[in-house]
């Protein structure tokens, strides 16, 4: 019996790590969303905007697919979270869904003849997706540390205790500060990606300026989020599955898991190094993206890790503490997690293929000439 328990816990932790990895990759791929909010700020002429939209357009599906896979993995591994949060925080998820639905068509339709609503309309949709998508995803992750307003009955059916069905989360400053951090970081990543992939003097210069402009609010939001996270009470779980409040829980988690602490610190350093080198480095340094992107992955991965591992409730209930979800009480059965773990072996294969495809497409920078070719595929 004890072995079975341990095995189940092993797979639950494994799957939480995988979900964390997908969440972390998603956070980095949100550069597409961040970039979408800069189309007009950085692109001043029609050709410049076309280059921006096209460099993002070649990657939007990666972000989208990661989001879908992230959702699918959560459903398969932690179905009670899926049922509780999606059904409970209804409006929050619907708003997020709409933001992504509208994005999916915008690249394809934007520059097509007879697109009914005009180019500008689809650009507005891209902007909305960039703003709403990033802020809400970040805020939802914030609820992992601040709790949500639900309770569960004997059959694990969810009741939500707030009429606004999830929108109340937008009033929690701590969760929102994470949402805004994601937004500003996505913009920084977006601008860095333009520098990396577009051959254009003006875009380079303006992107650099935007990195500086967004760095300041990012630092304010992220540091206040992180500082409060370290000093706040957290939702801990004991060996019997009883949830209780523990002072400095998330700080304890970091100290208890040195690898996670290292990952967080290296991540933050990576982000700052990439940004500062781009801003103040010599010879128009263009590769800052390749520091900030892995930095983002490591940072977000650590945040997920301290939310769910080390006897922590990753989706706490503020309405009924004992309804809180942990990776143990919300997971799939041992059998399903095992099956899914075989499937997870495909993740590295897919990542490798993604890298091959990414490199093949990004071999050369986007140039004005390429955009002006009549017979090429462009957005």
């Amino acid at each position, binding site marked *: 019996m004890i072995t079975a328990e341990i095995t189940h816990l092993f797979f639950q932790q494994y799957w939480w790590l995988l979900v964390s990895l997908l969440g972390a990759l998603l956070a980095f791929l949100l550069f597409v969303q961040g970039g979408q909010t800069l189309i007009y700020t950085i692109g001043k002429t029609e050709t410049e905007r076309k280059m921006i939209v096209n460099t993002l357009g070649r990657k939007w599906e990666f972000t989208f697919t990661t989001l879908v896979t992230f959702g699918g993995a959560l459903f*398969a591994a932690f179905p009670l979270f899926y049922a509780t949060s999606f059904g409970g925080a209804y409006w929050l998820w619907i708003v997020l869904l709409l933001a992504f639905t509208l994005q999916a068509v915008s690249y394809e339709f934007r520059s097509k003849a007879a697109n009914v609503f005009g180019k500008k309309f689809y650009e507005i949709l891209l902007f909305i997706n960039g703003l709403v998508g990033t802020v809400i995803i970040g805020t939802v992750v914030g609820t992992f540390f601040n709790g949500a307003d639900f309770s569960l009955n004997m059959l694990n059916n969810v009741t939500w205790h707030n009429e606004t069905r999830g929108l109340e989360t937008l009033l929690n400053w701590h969760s929102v500060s994470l949402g805004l951090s994601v937004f500003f970081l996505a913009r920084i990543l977006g601008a860095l990606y333009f520098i990396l992939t577009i051959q254009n003097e003006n875009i380079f210069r303006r992107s650099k300026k935007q990195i500086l402009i967004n760095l300041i609010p990012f630092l304010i939001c992220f540091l206040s989020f992180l500082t409060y996270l370290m000093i706040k009470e957290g939702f801990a779980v004991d060996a019997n599955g009883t949830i209780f409040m523990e002072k400095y829980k998330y700080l304890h988690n970091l100290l208890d898991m040195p690898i996670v602490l290292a990952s967080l610190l290296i991540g933050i350093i990576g982000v700052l190094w990439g940004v500062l080198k781009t801003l103040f480095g010599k010879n128009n340094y263009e590769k800052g993206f390749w520091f900030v992107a892995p930095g983002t992955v490591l940072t977000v991965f650590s945040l997920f890790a301290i939310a769910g591992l080390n006897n922590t409730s990753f989706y706490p209930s503020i309405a009924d503490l004992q309804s809180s979800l942990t990776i143990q009480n919300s997971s799939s059965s041992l059998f399903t997690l095992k099956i899914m773990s075989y499937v997870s072996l495909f993740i590295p294969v897919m990542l490798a293929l993604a890298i091959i495809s990414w490199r093949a497409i990004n071999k050369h920078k986007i140039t004005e000439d390429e955009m002006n070719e009549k017979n090429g595929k462009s957005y």
Partner: protein
Amino acid sequence: MTQLLLNIDPVLIDWSRAQFALTAMFHWIFVPITLGILFIIAIMETVYVKTGNPEWKRITKFWMKLFAINFAIGVATGIILEFEFGTNWSNYSWFVGDIFGAPLAIEGIMAFFMETIFIAVMFFGWNKVSKKFHLTATWLTALGANLSALWILVANAWMQYPAGMQFNPDTARNEMVDFWEVLFSPVAVNKFLHTVTSGYTLAALFVIGVSSYFLLRKRETLLAKRSIVIASVFGFISVMALIFTGHGSAVQVAEHQPMKLAAMEGLYEGGQEAELIGFAILNPNKEVDNDEKPYLFKVGFKGVLSFLIDFDTKTYVPGIADLVYGDEQNQILPTEERMRKGKIAMNALIAYKEFKEQGNEEEAKLQYDILMDNYKHFGYSYVKDPRDIVPHVPTVFYSFHIMVIFGTMFVLVFLIFAWLTITNKIENFKFAKLLYIIGLACIPMAFIASEAGWVVAEVGRQPWVVQDLMTVDAGVTNISSGAVQTTFWIFAFIFTGLLIAEVSIMLKFIKDGPAKPENEGGK
């Protein structure tokens, strides 16, 4: 305890169902083209790589662009479906998430990722990667799209025929015990094959329809004829497989969802030598509890329905009334009896949980056994009236017949087009103009048939969200009906806007035709 007994607003259920139906049907406008046209494109590109003839590249790129316009919107609606299981069917998501979540996640990890990765190469890699790499990417995109379909259809099949699982009272959910049984359940296999071949058929008709437009306008005739050759042969093979798997699906329905079969045929009183209805007008006054005649007019074939189920005209097929009121002779329990057993199961589950909480293992074990003995009737505990297990018969009946009639006609369409293009007689054919018009008309007909198929599958299984285990009332998210009504209209508004834009872009693109050959050599 009372909170476990359902008190769900029926208006909420209707709106939640309507919202899911709206999203699913809208999604299904775009998916079947994607599934099929990718193979057609891959075949065309293979010809291009083998022959090196630039005209084939031009043809490939033309259809690829149409695919791209269509693809984005399919993706956009697909994500809504995935999330809607959680947002609107949260109790369902928990009750079956241990089984249902896995295929969804596998779809994301294996199939959808593959599709996305190679689509990037397919769209943007023309001059960046070698011809062979590009061709491989195209084939792999097609494979990825079809693998996506596999997993989501496995999930759907499981709802129609829950296999490979066991109920766990401690977690109050069904848990997977045999993955292969879920994946290779005969319902899943048939559903997958039937659904993807319907997509291939539709895509082939789409290609023939658009090509017919060019022939009608006497433009791009070479592109049109070559496209028709490939599409009609591909379509003919597909539609034959479609009919074959359709039969297989019907056999599965007869075995696992007899009520759906009865509704498909409007069969109220069952028996041996059951009649297959070719076409009929249903009597709108007919209900399961009155003596009205079921049909106002019909063309039927006696014994054929029985024969189709297991090649024996004497096979007994239960009717709607038999399933509602029971048929002792054929060992069909009356629904009331199943409701009683369902309630026993539900009460045993509640008692089990209470005894467990008190630490009374012995009593808990007793209740567990009672629960398991009656579990196959569990969902009937949610049924309030035996007549509630009857789906809306006219919807199911007419959808089924439209699907079958159209599907059969398509066989002929493919044959004629294939013959006339392969022998290169199409332009001199006496009724060429009429044929082109038929080709064009087949596009909307294929969409209607395809959507009708889903209506049969999904309306036909009402009121079950999981056959015999959970009704829609029990699976729905507890939320105000006003909220769902609002999101329904938001979705309807957005979908309409997107559809208008997409159709407008497609029509303009087709009207303008493919890029001129002299531009060849670009990307």
